[in-house]
C-alpha cells in the first residue's frame, strides 16, 4: 500500500534528488555559472538536512512499501550526518570544481550519492539494501576518477571500480544465499531463519554478506583499494566518501545484524571483534609509513573502521544499547573531524612537507588541522574522544572476553596512531616554513568549511548531550 504518508517519509530523498537534477540542468543551460550551481547544490543539501530535522521534530515514524522502507530515529540520525557532510563537501568542492569546468556533473554525482546513502539507512529488505548501496557506490566510482588532470585519479577510480564490483557480487551472493534459506529478504522475517538450528548455507551467506560490507567500509583484509582511491580522488570527494556513504553502510549493517539476525549474535560479534582487531592494526601500522597525507588519512580511515567495528563486537550483554549509541556518536564525531582534515589537504597540499611551518604562515589553518589531528587521536575535548569513550564504555559493559581484547587493542592503537597524526602537528608548529609557502587562495567557501568543522570538532562536547539523547531513542534494540 502506497500512501501519502510514505511520500512524507521520503521528502529528504526527494529533495536531494530534485536538486541533483536541477544542478545538472543548470549546467546544461548555463555552463559558466559555477557560483549558481554550487549555491544550488549547497542549498539542496541544506534543505535536505532541514527536512530531515523536521521529520525528527515531528516524531515522524513508520514503515512503508510493504515494510521494505522504514523511517525511524535511527535512520533519520544517519540522514542528518549524510546531508550535513554533503553540505560541507559541496562548499569545499566549489573552488576546485569551478576550475575543472565540470562543476554541475561533479555536484550532481555528490547529490546522487546522498540519495543512495539516505535510502540505504531506511531499507529493511536485503534487495532494497543492495540497490541502495549500488546507487551510492556507482556515482562514487566516477567521483574518484573525476580529476582528469591527475593520473592517480583514473588509476584510483579504476581500482575502486574493479574491487567494488567484486565486493558487490560477493554481497549479492551472500544476500541470495540468505534469501534462499530464509524464504524472504525482509529483515523482520529473516530472524526466523537465524533462530534455533542455523543451516550452514545461511551462515555462509552471513559471512559473504559481512565480507561484502567489509569491502565497502574498507575493513581489513578488504581495505586495499582505499589508499589508491582516496589519493586519486579530489579532496572533497575523498572526504565525503570516507564519511557519508561509510556511515550509512555501517548503519545498515547494524540494522541487518540487529533486526535480522539477533539470534546468531555470538557469531557475528566474534567475527566483528576479530575483524576490528586486524583492521585497527593494519590501518595504523600502514599509516605510520606514509609520507603522503592523503594516503595517511586513507589508512587512518581504515583504522577508524576498525574502531567502529569494536562497537559492533560489543553489541551483546548489557552493552547492547551503549554499543548502538557508540556507533551513532562515533559516526557523527568522525564526520566532523575527518571532513575537516581532508579539506585542509585541499588548502595546503598532500605532501607532509607542505605542512612545514604552517603555524607561522597560516595560523588559522594550522590550528584547525591541529584540532582535527588531535580529534582523530581521540584527545578530549575534541569530537573523536567521545566516540572512543563510548566504544570503550560499551565494551566494558559487554562482559565478553574477546570484546575486552578488542578494547585493549583500541587503546593500544590510539597510542600507535599518535606519531603519524602528531607528525603533522610537529611539521606545522616546530619546523621552519618552506619557501614557497604562504600561497593564498581565494577559496572562501572551502575555508569556511574548514573553520566551521574545526569549531564543531572543538565544541562537540556541547552537542554530544543532545546527540546522545537522540541516539538513545533510536529504536534499534
Amino acid at each position: 500500500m502506497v500512501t501519502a504518508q510514505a511520500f512524507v517519509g521520503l521528502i529528504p530523498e526527494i529533495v536531494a534528488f530534485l536538486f541533483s537534477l536541477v544542478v545538472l540542468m543548470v549546467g546544461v543551460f548555463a555552463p559558466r555559472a559555477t557560483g549558481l550551481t554550487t549555491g544550488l547544490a549547497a542549498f539542496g543539501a541544506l534543505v535536505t538536512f532541514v527536512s530531515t530535522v523536521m521529520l525528527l521534530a515531528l516524531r515522524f515514524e513508520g514503515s512503508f512499501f510493504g515494510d521494505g522502507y522504514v523511517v525511524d530515529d535511527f535512520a533519520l540520525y544517519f540522514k542528518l550526518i549524510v546531508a550535513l557532510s554533503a553540505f560541507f563537501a559541496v562548499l569545499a568542492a566549489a573552488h576546485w570544481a569551478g576550475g575543472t569546468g565540470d562543476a554541475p556533473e561533479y555536484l550532481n554525482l555528490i547529490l546522487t550519492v546522498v540519495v543512495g546513502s539516505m535510502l540505504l539507512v531506511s531499507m529493511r529488505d536485503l534487495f532494497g539494501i543492495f540497490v541502495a548501496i549500488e546507487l551510492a557506490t556507482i556515482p562514487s566510482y566516477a567521483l574518484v576518477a573525476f580529476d582528469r588532470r591527475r593520473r592517480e585519479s583514473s588509476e584510483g577510480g579504476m581500482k575502486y571500480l574493479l574491487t567494488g564490483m567484486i565486493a558487490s557480487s560477493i554481497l549479492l551472493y551472500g544476500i541470495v544465499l540468505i534469501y534462499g534459506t530464509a524464504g524472504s529478504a525482509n529483515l523482520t522475517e529473516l530472524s526466523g531463519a537465524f533462530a534455533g538450528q542455523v543451516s550452514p548455507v545461511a551462515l555462509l551467506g552471513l559471512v559473504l554478506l559481512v565480507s561484502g560490507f567489509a569491502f565497502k567500509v574498507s575493513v581489513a583484509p578488504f581495505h586495499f583499494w582505499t589508499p589508491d582511491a582516496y589519493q586519486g580522488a579530489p579532496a572533497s570527494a575523498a572526504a565525503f566518501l570516507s564519511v557519508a556513504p561509510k556511515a550509512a553502510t555501517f548503519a545498515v549493517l547494524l540494522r541487518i545484524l540487529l533486526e535480522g539476525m539477533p539470534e546468531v549474535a555470538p557469531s557475528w560479534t566474534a567475527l566483528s571483534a576479530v575483524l576490528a582487531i586486524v583492521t585497527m592494526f593494519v590501518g595504523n601500522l600502514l599509516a605510520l609509513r606514509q609520507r603522503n597525507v592523503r594516503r595517511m588519512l586513507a589508512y587512518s580511515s581504515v583504522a577508524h573502521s576498525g574502531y567502529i567495528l569494536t562497537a559492533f563486537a560489543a553489541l551483546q550483554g548489557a552493552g547492547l544499547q551503549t554499543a548502538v549509541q557508540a556507533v551513532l556518536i562515533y559516526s557523527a564525531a568522525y564526520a566532523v573531524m575527518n571532513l575537516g582534515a581532508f579539506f585542509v589537504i585541499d588548502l595546503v597540499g598532500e605532501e607532509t612537507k607542505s605542512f612545514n611551518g604552517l603555524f607561522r604562515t597560516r595560523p588559522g589553518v594550522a590550528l584547525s588541522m591541529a584540532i582535527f589531528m588531535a580529534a582523530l587521536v581521540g584527545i578530549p575535548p575534541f569530537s573523536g574522544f567521545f566516540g572512543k569513550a563510548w566504544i570503550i564504555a560499551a565494551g566494558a559493559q559487554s562482559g565478553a572476553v574477546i570484546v575486552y581484547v578488542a578494547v585493549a587493542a583500541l587503546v593500544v592503537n590510539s597510542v600507535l596512531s599518535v606519531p603519524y597524526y602528531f607528525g603533522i602537528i610537529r611539521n606545522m608548529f616546530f619546523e621552519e616554513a618552506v619557501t614557497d609557502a604562504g600561497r593564498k587562495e581565494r577559496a572562501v567557501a572551502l575555508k569556511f568549511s574548514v573553520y566551521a568543522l574545526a569549531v564543531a570538532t572543538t565544541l562537540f562536547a556541547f552537542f554530544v548531550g543532545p546527540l546522545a539523547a537522540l541516539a538513545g531513542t533510536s529504536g534499534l534494540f
Partner: protein
Amino acid sequence: MITTITIFFPLLGVLLMLLLRNADERTVRYSALGIAAVPLLLVLYVYFAYGGDLREASALTQSFDWISSLGIGYRVGLDGLGFGMFFLSALLTLIAVVASWDIRENPRQYFAILFVAELGMLGVFAAQDLILFYVFFEITLIPMYLLVGIWGDENRRPAAIKFFIYTFLGSTTMLAGFLALGMLSGPNFSIEALQESGALSRTAQVAVAAPILFGLLVKVPAVPLHSWLLDVYVSSPTSTNVMLSGVLPKLGTYGLIKIAVPLLPQGVEPFLPFLAIFGVVNIIYGSFVAFLQPDLKALVAYSSIGTLGFILLGVASGNAVGINGAVMQQVTHGLYSALLFILVGIIASRTGTRRIDEMGGLAARMPWVGGLLALGALAAMGVPGLAVFVSEFMSIMGGFEAFPVWGVLATLGLILGAMYLLFMLQRTIFGPMTLPTLEETEDAGPVEMAAVVPLAFLLLILGFVPSLLINVQRPAVEAVLVAIGGS
C-alpha cells in the same frame, strides 16, 4: 560558580592573546600577568572566605547533566584534597608568566598556550566527575607538548613527542579503567556518588584498579615508568619546567588520593605494598642518579622524581598521618622544585652553562641566587623549619606505621638526598670562582626575584605554620579514611 569562573578564566587570557596581534611585547606581558593574577586572587578569596570546611560551601560546587544517558555530568567543586593544588596551579602559572620574561620568540603564543594548560590543571583539581577529570587531565597534554616542542632547546622535538606518547599511553589506559568503573556501577560517573555506593565486587575492583593505577603512575612518574621524564625536563624552557615539575606529576598523585584509593578501596588494597615500594624506589633511585648528574638541571629533575616518592609512600600507608603528609607534599614539592628550576634557569642564562663542575663561587657574585639556591636545596633535603620537612616527615611516619621496612628505607633516602644536595651546593655556590663569564655577572634582577621570592616565602611560612594548609585538607582526608575503613 566561583570554581567554574576560576577554571575557565584563563580562556579569557587565550582570547586576549589572540586579539593582541599588533601589540608590543610589553603590553602582551603585562596583560598576561594581569590575566594570570585573577585566578590566584579568586583562590585566595575562597581560602579566606570558606577555608574552614570547603565541602560545606555550596557556592563552590556546581553540577548539571552533561551526557545523562551515561550518568556523566559537569560536576565541579573544591575540597581539601584538591584545594592546595588548585592554589598551586594558579600560583605557578603566575610565576611561570613572570619567569618567562626571557621568552623572546612569540611571547603572545607562549602565554596563550600556557593559559590553556592552566585551564586543564585548575579543572583537574576541581573536577568531581570521572570523565570531566579525564577531560581536564588531557587538556594539559597538548599545551605542554607544544610549549616544549616550540620553545625548548635543540633536543626538544624527540623529547616532546616521547613525553606525549608515554603519558598518552598512561592516560588512555586510565580512561578505560574509568569507563569500566563508571559503566559497571550504574552507569554513574560522579566521584561523590561512586565513593558512597561502592557497588563493585572485590574482583571487579581489582580489575578496574589495575589500569587506573598504571595510568596514574606513568604520570607521576613512578620509577620504572619514568624514562620519558629526563629529556623533557632538560629540554624545556624554565617557565615550562615550573609547570612540568610543579603541577603535572600531581595530576597522577592526586588521582591516586582522590579516585583510586577512595573509590576502589578493595581493588587498590593488594597494590598498596607495591605502591610503597614504588615510593621508596623513587626516593632512593632519584637520589642516587641525581648524585651522578653533571648537569644542574638534570640533578634537580632527579631530585624532583625522588621526593615524589614520599607522596606515593604516604598514599600507600592508608592512615591519616600518611595521607595528610602526601596531600601536603604535593604542594610543598611543587614549591621547592619550581624554585630550584627557576634558579637553575637564572644561573644558566647568566653563566652560559649548566655543568656543575664548571661552576663555583656563584654566591660571591650572585648572593641572592646563591642564598635562595641553598634555601631550595635545604628544603629538598627536608630540613626542619621548611615546609617540605613537615610533609615528608608525615609521609614517612605514616609509611613506617603501615610498612616499617619501607619507612626505614625512606629515611635512608633522606640522608642520600642531603648528601648530593650539599655536594651540589659546595661545588656551585661556594668555592673559588672558576667561570670566566662569572666575573661580570650580576645578581638576579627585580623581575627574577619576583618569581622566586614568593616561593621561598611560602616554603618558610608553611614550614612554621603547616596548619594553614593541613587544616583545610583534614576534613577531606578524613572522608577518604572513612571510604577505606568502611569497605
